[in-house]
């Protein structure tokens, strides 16, 4: 039996009324790799952030070597030997790997009392950057089998190299318990295999390792135990050897919950948007969309399911004319004439000028869809301000529209002149969706439109999407909650790591089936119509 690294007892954390973690008991052992598995928003990152000192638990206790410990800051965590590699790296770009690793390191201070006047010289020398500072780091790297050029500048590094720097940094600070948040999300399969080898080396060295993930194959490949979280609760911890992917998926997604979202039968279904073999390469040179093809049909809601960051954002942006395609075509069929329009290489303005009524509710509401500091009228005007030949703005139509949105969608706001950043999340989203619907779109794309919204606002949004569908709009809905996707959508496109792993019927598909497809376990081709 391995020794206990840290023990969590009844840990709870609330964000306002939202329960992020509830009464979690979890024991982490040395010499072991533990996977924390769960869907997006199940609270796995929050839990680990409490171990690394980012958050402070609202209730519960932590024990190390039988002693209760309190972690208030990343510094406390370090001193207890806990280090975490976050998804977003904290590195200085123009520094070399070495300098990033030693940044903020505690240096030994010599007191004059003990060392006399020599202390001054010793302190001075301790304050210098040691020419051989890379040696100790190189030792660590060699010990665990990292291959990295320590003198390389961070801005020249690939994502996987940056991650390596972060891991070495944590080890250099003396961590015995390493937490990695979605470490493989940004890696290629080869890089992942290398990382796993390093993790195994660290395990052999007696370290306790926690990886937060939702990729089942990786869980099976690397971990000794799996802790499954669902909706903020710890479902169970099982030994990897004694379970399988199907069982884990069931634990992860739970039983199907009925939400009673109304879903009408699609009428007058016809192809509206045909995406063919689209690939997109991002700035870092990573393929974020790989040969994606699908059809969005008028009078239907097409759901897109997938783990966050699997290419959903890029896919919608590609359609909206905000992404340069590496290859592939995007064809739009006009509703009246059925003429084909090639949307590829068109800017949003050109798309609009061709009469294509494409609406897009982006994921980043206040950073992209709306301008936080502008009032409701000016935000409602964003799409339409160019109308007319006049050099001046005509605020009358947007003002009327704002008032309509406010009354129809029951937006709570002091007035139409309130800056939108002062509204609550639900009201912000109503303004955004209201504006996008107001232009009578033929295609409506919405990315995570109910994220962070309360139940009532969420249902308002579902209803709006359903209305649009009945009006013959091709609706594309990117969601994260499988229950919602299964009740709202007519067809569901499942993506994994930039690839389409299948299209399923929203009425007949099983939750586990989609869950497995999201993690790339099975690819299924169910083409209907």
């Amino acid at each position, binding site marked *: 039996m391995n020794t206990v690294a840290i023990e969590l007892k009844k840990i709870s954390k609330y964000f306002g009324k939202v329960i992020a973690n509830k009464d979690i008991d979890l024991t982490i052992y040395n010499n072991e790799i533990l996977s924390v598995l769960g869907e997006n928003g199940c609270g796995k990152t929050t839990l680990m952030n409490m171990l690394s000192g980012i958050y402070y638990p609202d209730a519960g206790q932590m024990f190390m070597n039988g002693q209760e410990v*309190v972690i*208030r800051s990343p510094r406390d965590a370090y001193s207890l030997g806990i280090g975490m590699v976050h998804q977003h790296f904290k590195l200085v770009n123009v520094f070399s790997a070495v300098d990033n690793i030693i940044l903020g390191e505690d240096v030994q201070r010599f007191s004059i009392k003990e060392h006399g006047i020599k202390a001054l010289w010793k302190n001075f020398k301790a304050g210098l950057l040691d020419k051989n500072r890379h040696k100790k780091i190189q030792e660590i790297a060699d010990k665990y089998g990292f291959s990295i050029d320590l003198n390389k500048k961070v801005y020249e590094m690939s994502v996987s190299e940056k991650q390596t720097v972060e891991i070495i940094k944590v080890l250099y600070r003396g961590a015995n318990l390493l937490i990695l948040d979605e470490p493989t999300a940004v890696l290629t399969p080869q890089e992942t295999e290398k990382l796993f080898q390093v993790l195994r080396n660290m395990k052999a060295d007696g370290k306790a390792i926690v990886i937060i993930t939702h990729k089942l194959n990786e869980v099976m490949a690397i971990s000794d135990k799996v802790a499954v979280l669902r909706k903020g609760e710890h479902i169970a911890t099982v030994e990897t050897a004694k379970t399988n992917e199907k069982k884990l998926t069931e634990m992860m997604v739970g039983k199907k919950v009925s939400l009673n979202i109304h879903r009408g039968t699609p009428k007058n279904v016809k192809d509206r948007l045909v995406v063919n073999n689209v690939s997109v390469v991002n700035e870092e040179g990573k393929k974020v969309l790989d040969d994606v093809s699908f059809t969005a049909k008028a009078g239907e809601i097409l759901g897109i399911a997938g783990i966050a960051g699997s290419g959903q954002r890029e896919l919608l942006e590609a359609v909206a004319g905000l992404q340069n395609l590496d290859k592939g075509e995007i064809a739009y069929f006009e509703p009246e004439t059925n003429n084909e329009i090639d949307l590829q290489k068109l800017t949003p303005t*050109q798309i609009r000028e061709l009469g294509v009524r494409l609406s897009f509710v982006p994921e980043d509401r206040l950073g*992209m*869809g709306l301008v*936080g500091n*502008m009032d409701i009228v000016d935000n409602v*005007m964003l799409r339409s*301000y160019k109308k007319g030949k006049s050099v*001046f703005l005509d605020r009358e139509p947007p003002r009327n529209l704002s008032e309509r949105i406010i009354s129809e969608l029951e937006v709570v706001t002091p007035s139409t002149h309130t800056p939108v950043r002062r509204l609550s999340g639900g009201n912000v989203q109503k303004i955004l969706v209201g504006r996008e619907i107001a232009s009578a779109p033929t295609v409506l794309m919405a990315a995570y439109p109910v994220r962070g919204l309360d139940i009532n606002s969420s249902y308002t949004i579902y209803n709006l999407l359903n209305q649009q569908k009945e009006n013959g709009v091709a609706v594309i809905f990117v969601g994260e909650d499988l229950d919602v996707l299964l009740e709202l959508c007519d067809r569901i496109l499942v993506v994994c790591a930039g690839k389409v792993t299948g299209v399923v019927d929203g009425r007949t598909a099983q939750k586990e089936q989609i869950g497995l497809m999201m993690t790339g376990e099975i690819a299924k081709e169910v083409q209907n119509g």
Partner: protein
Amino acid sequence: MANNAKVREPLIHISKRDTVPLKFSIIVRAIAIVSALLLCALLASFTTKGGFFGFFIELFSGLFGTPRRIWNLLQALAILLGISLAVTPAFKMKFWNIGAEGQTLIAGLACAACMKFLGGTMPEFVLILISLIASVIAGAVWAVIPAIFKAFWNTNETLFTLMMNYVAMNLVRYFVFAWVPNGSAVVGVIPHGHLPALFGQQYLINIISVAFLTAFVYVYLKESKHGYELTVVGESENTARYIGINVKKVVIRTMILSGILCGVVGFLLVAGTAFTINDAIVGGRGFTAILVSWLGKFNPLYMILTALLTVSLQQGANQIATVNRMPGAFADLIVGIVFFFIIACEFFLKYKVKIRTKHAQNDSNVNKEVKA
């Protein structure tokens, strides 16, 4: 066990304010200005004969003592406000153009060149028109160069425009020496191309022009499609991209406008006020304008107030200095102090400072965690 966690929390907690009521913001600013003036008066009571109250008396008389002083005040207000208006569209776009000094100066140079070399060869109103056009072009060119580099290569515009100021200054000095062969470096009053005096008031045309510019910039920013676009670009480039605004185009267009406005002010300065050219003709107002625009929240109407405050302080303090035979730098000192207070008071409008008591501590802890 949760209790000992709070021990290390800092005593003072600073958090961002959402918005502040108008009344509160006016009160905070008024307190800042009044306390700054009291400090200045205290300073004056050590250095001047008039003492503490004499400071205010002289300040007032420096502004409104004679009709001439009032006209001077309005004239100074017009020029400062004009330059402030010029930098505002760029600032609203978060393009930190600190080159208004150079843009105005180079426009003045172009104007003076027209007056000097074309003067007498054509009717005055044609000359004035040509001078205006030349000024506007010169200002626009000086402004668009950094804008192009910013748009295409993201060259740091603050440092670029700053350097352009000094290139302009040296260029002016070059021409002053070149035009005046005797080496006195004084161009003197150029006899042609003066703006006419309306109702016997030489400065009236400047004041009216700037009033018109104020209205123009106000409408441009608030009511025009261009103004709307540059606001969106300034607030969020991502949103601009999302709705299909060409950011490069807007950056360049807005800086051309900024340059044109500087050009107009340079023209008013040379053809309507000084009738000559030298490197000190803008006299740092290109920099002061940045403060005026920023303090006026980039709103032309508020800027009238901030510009008025600035020129009043300058003129009033100058009067105090003259009466007490003190160096003219006294005015800079006073303006500097008042600005410091106004700049510092912005902090209290933007952030909430909470000093933790036992009770508040628990409260704010919860708040912070919720935010995180």
